[in-house]
């Protein structure tokens, strides 16, 4: 049976490279044949904003969009998202606006490992 890795990230796209580390772990896990879930919480939800255009560092929005297209389940906390003024439809394609109680809970219960990337 395929093992599952869930990655919970809590830092924003412009704060550090934490979410990039989360994406690298997700990509490596996917390439090794694992099922991968990712959940954005707190400031982490800023990483899924559609239309990010950083000039001098990696575009995490594009990275997450590509991971989602390759089968990574990406979900985020709706409360955190709304608190920062985001509305549904502003997220990159393939990302689900969800909740801790439904999505993260489901991810964790079906996972073999949980990795938290946060400061």
């Amino acid at each position, binding site marked *: 049976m395929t093992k599952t890795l869930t990655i919970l990230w809590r830092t924003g796209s412009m704060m550090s*490279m*934490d979410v990039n*580390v989360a994406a690298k*772990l997700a990509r*490596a896990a996917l390439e*090794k044949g694992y099922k991968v879930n990712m959940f954005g919480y707190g400031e982490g939800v800023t990483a899924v904003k559609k239309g990010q255009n950083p000039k001098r560092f990696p575009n995490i929005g594009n990275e997450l969009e590509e991971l989602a297209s390759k089968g990574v389940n990406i979900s985020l906390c709706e409360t955190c998202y709304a608190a920062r003024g985001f509305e549904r439809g502003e997220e990159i394609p393939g990302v689900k606006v969800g909740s801790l109680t439904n999505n993260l809970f489901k991810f964790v219960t079906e996972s073999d490992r949980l*990795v*938290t990337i946060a400061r």
Partner: protein
Amino acid sequence: MKTAYIVLKSPQEQNPSHLIGRFSGRDESTAILVEDGVYQAMHMDASRRLKDAASTILVSREDLLARGFTERDLKAGKATDYGEIVESIMEHTERTITL
């Protein structure tokens, strides 16, 4: 319980060895150094402390090179890619704690 510790911070920000020692024994501990955590394996005192706390130390080669260093600068552990890091998390340890 075999535990993987993900270390994101430099020795100037954090001493992970102290926490690792509190949670698990040396033989059950794997330190995974990413981002500024790679400095833990290059700093004289921090690398010595880490070797005492964890039997396996994996250093992200990508994050090492990004900071202008190479494997030759390591005083502890070995440089590796994210594939091996994932394998350590999924196959060789039973839980992951981020410090």
